[in-house]
């Protein structure tokens, strides 16, 4: 499950990076770019880091919801914590690698810092956005009303198996 999730997230990230890499071309061609390709790419990538982080966090269990497989996933023979690690772990790994690569690219000058924010704070914001949609799985057993979070309520206690 971990590997399948990792493969999915890597595929999505590769698609996203490909789109970000291509975006400067029409900007340069049609808008009269303010500088070379790298200078146009830098702010797009910075914004991309932030939005992609939010997407990665928010799409946790997205495949299960999209394919009506939540109930199946929950009835797999794993504790809630085990399931959370298998599903959220690959996302966290990709998120960290993505942010680290971004910070390195900006700090080493491969890409110059844009005017928006230096890379460090951008990475911090990215991590916060990644984790912000995640509290629902760890919500307390009394806080929720929906069947969805009911599936996760009391997660640390898990099922007795």
């Amino acid at each position, binding site marked *: *499950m971990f590997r*399948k999730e990792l493969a999915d997230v890597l595929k999505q990230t590769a698609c996203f990076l490909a789109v970000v890499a291509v975006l400067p071309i029409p900007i340069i061609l049609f808008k009269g770019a303010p500088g070379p390709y790298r200078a146009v790419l830098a702010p797009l990538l910075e914004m991309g880091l932030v939005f992609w982080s939010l997407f990665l966090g928010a799409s946790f269990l997205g*495949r*299960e919801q999209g*394919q*009506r*497989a*939540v*109930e*199946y996933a*929950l*009835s*797999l*023979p*794993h504790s*809630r914590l085990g399931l959370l690690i298998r599903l959220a772990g690959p996302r966290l790994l990709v998120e960290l690698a993505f942010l680290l690569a971004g910070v390195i690219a900006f700090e080493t000058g491969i890409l110059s810092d844009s005017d928006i924010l230096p890379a460090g704070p951008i990475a911090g914001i990215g991590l916060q956005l990644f984790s912000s949609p995640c509290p629902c799985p760890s919500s307390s*057993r*009394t806080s929720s*009303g*929906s*069947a969805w979070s*009911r*599936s*996760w*309520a*009391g*997660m640390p*206690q*898990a*099922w*007795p*198996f």
Partner: protein
Amino acid sequence: MSDPILTADKLTVRYGRRTALDGVSATFAAGEAVVIAGSNGAGKSTLLRCLGGAIIPDLGRVVPGPGLDRARIGFVSDRLSLYENWTLREAWRFHRKEFGIAAAGRPPIEGFTLDEGRRIRHLSVGERTLFHLSLILAQRPAVLLIDEVVHGLDPFLRERFLETAIGAMDELKTAVIMVNHILSDTAEIPERVLIMDGGQVILDERREDLMAKVKKVAGDAAFPPSLPVLFETASEYRRDRYIYPFREEWRRGSGAAFTDIGLDEIVKAFIGGAYVQKRAR
């Protein structure tokens, strides 16, 4: 009752302000066939989801019997939840890996074959139900939880499904816990009947005992007012009264003709009785 394989211990589940399960306790034995019936919203599916681990209760717990691990609990939900974009081959590979199944092939269901390259979302409800069942049976389940999926099957597939489930009970001593309220073609399967209403178990009886305790009085025959009427239906043409709990000595001297009824009608009487009580409150 033989050793319990699964015990629901005072399960309470709330969806917001609504209480779906209200302190439900029940014990299920190895190899036992139990049917859970009740009105819509009675808590049947929630109970099954708790037993299958898909829902964690607010209060109470599910206690597994000795040696039962979760990989041997098979759960066929009414949503037939599986990864829809996967092919049957992919789904089978994933399921086998996750449940640690050693067998190379899924257990066949007689009279039912599918192209392994088809995607799950392209299967009909019946095909999907039987495919799901074949995945679950590969786990060699000690407990099989089936939530109202039988009604979506045509008569041929329904028969295959039930025969396969019964075969698993015989071969593996699987406890089958089935949520069902149309019992016309499954009435012979359950050994025990649980009827739920308002998030509680209002009846938990062995099938034979229950059938002995519920009788019908048809028509307007003289009727001693002291007899416990569970439910009554009356129309211009017909009047039926269901008596519970019935005692044999009432056959003599009461003047009424008590008739035996099937499980389907018994369940209907209990559900109808529950609706009448709700309306009266």
